[in-house]
């Protein structure tokens, strides 16, 4: 299972952003993932419009102090985790 750079991730049915007591969370069956900083930036771009490549590019700009390779691998790992949780579909 690998993430295609040209695919466009979007939240799977029944997966949505929520908020409780000021904390953004990703809600899904039997799970809620806390979203902070980079994870929130990634999830907000899982909208079937951005390609994985574009998400990487935009986050490399936001986190321009960080090593761009590290940003890329962190994003791919996070998307793979969400895919494993069945929180994402890829257009």
């Amino acid at each position: 299972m690998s993430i295609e750079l040209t695919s466009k991730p979007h939240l799977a049915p029944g997966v949505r952003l929520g908020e409780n007591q000021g904390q953004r969370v990703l809600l899904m069956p039997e799970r809620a993932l806390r979203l902070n900083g980079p994870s929130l930036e990634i999830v907000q771009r899982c909208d079937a419009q951005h390609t994985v490549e574009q998400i990487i590019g935009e986050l490399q700009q936001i986190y321009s102090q960080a090593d761009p390779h590290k940003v890329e691998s962190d994003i791919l790992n996070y998307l793979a985790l969400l895919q494993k949780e069945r929180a994402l579909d890829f257009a």
Partner: protein
Amino acid sequence: MPSHLANPLALIAELTHRCPLHCVYCSNPLELQARSAELLTDDWERVFREAASLGVLQVDFTGGEPLTRTDILDLVRAARSAGLYVNLITSGLPLDEAKLAALVEAGLDHFQLSFQGAREEIAQEISGTKAHAQKLRVLEWLRHHRLAVTLNFVLHRRNLEQLPEMLALAESSTASRVEFANVQYYGWAFANRDSLLPTREQLTHSIDFLKSAQGRLEGKLRVEYVVPDYYAKYPKPCMGGWGRKLILITPNGDALPCHAARIIPGLSFENINSRSLREIWECSDAFQKFRGESWMQEPCKSCDRRAQDFGGCRCQALLLAGDAAGTDPVCQLSPDRQKVDAVLAQINLDAGNGATAAQAQTAPHPPAAPPTKHEWLYRPNPS
């Protein structure tokens, strides 16, 4: 709130004990509550708002059969507008296409459909109702809606050999998640335990089968598996720890730390019509009783695993060892583990006598349990 006390994450809303099914392993208590005792719509709406302000993220609508509540659409709407993620745990029986569409429209996030097996005969034997064909219809209707779908198969000795068929059913549906949950033994299931507990051979086969399925289906279908506690080496962190993550509200509004807590002598439960949910969570006796570690005895008290499993299940400790504050007897460190082993030895001995050696060697799947006459205790429907 005391700083060490985390907020609850999920509310289990047992909306009713009424149910068209009579499953022999029902998780409802032996003493079922009548319709006349059930909370009103307004009460539940207030509970959802209080829960959300307490930090709860998800609500599970369960029962009995939650769809027997005539106000179910109002309840879904109210929970969703309180900000909760709304799960419906249902048999799918009192449902038609229009009702499903209305539930989705009202804001239902996740539909969890429970199955008694992969075929009508076993479903009927276990639930005392003809239920399977309707579930297959519901799976077809679900194709037309955008929401999360989980299939839940409850496993035991009488249906474990249908596991490949169950998985195929899940794969052919729109489900993103399938749960294979072995029966745990409280209440009705405890009464029917000798007819339900799987053999060790069945269990080993099923674990191998599902491990390979998990690998094959990763990213497509989440396959989750729960083994029977009796076969585990260590106990499960029951309810994620007592009074630590979950609040269960019974049909009449009593707040419980777990489904079976009512069997524990000396515990009294407060009602959401007498106190706020926050007060109940933070300081009611029932939620405090086994919270944290101060109630623990040896071997839990000094055990490295105590922050992982919280001593296991209080109700199981009571049922098997007669002390709700004892170590869960399924734990291999428990002084009462031999009581569990004795039950397992009997089940595996009985099963061994029924299957021939040739069957055991050549069967691709474990042989079905020997055909014995089962004297089921069916769960009735409350008035």
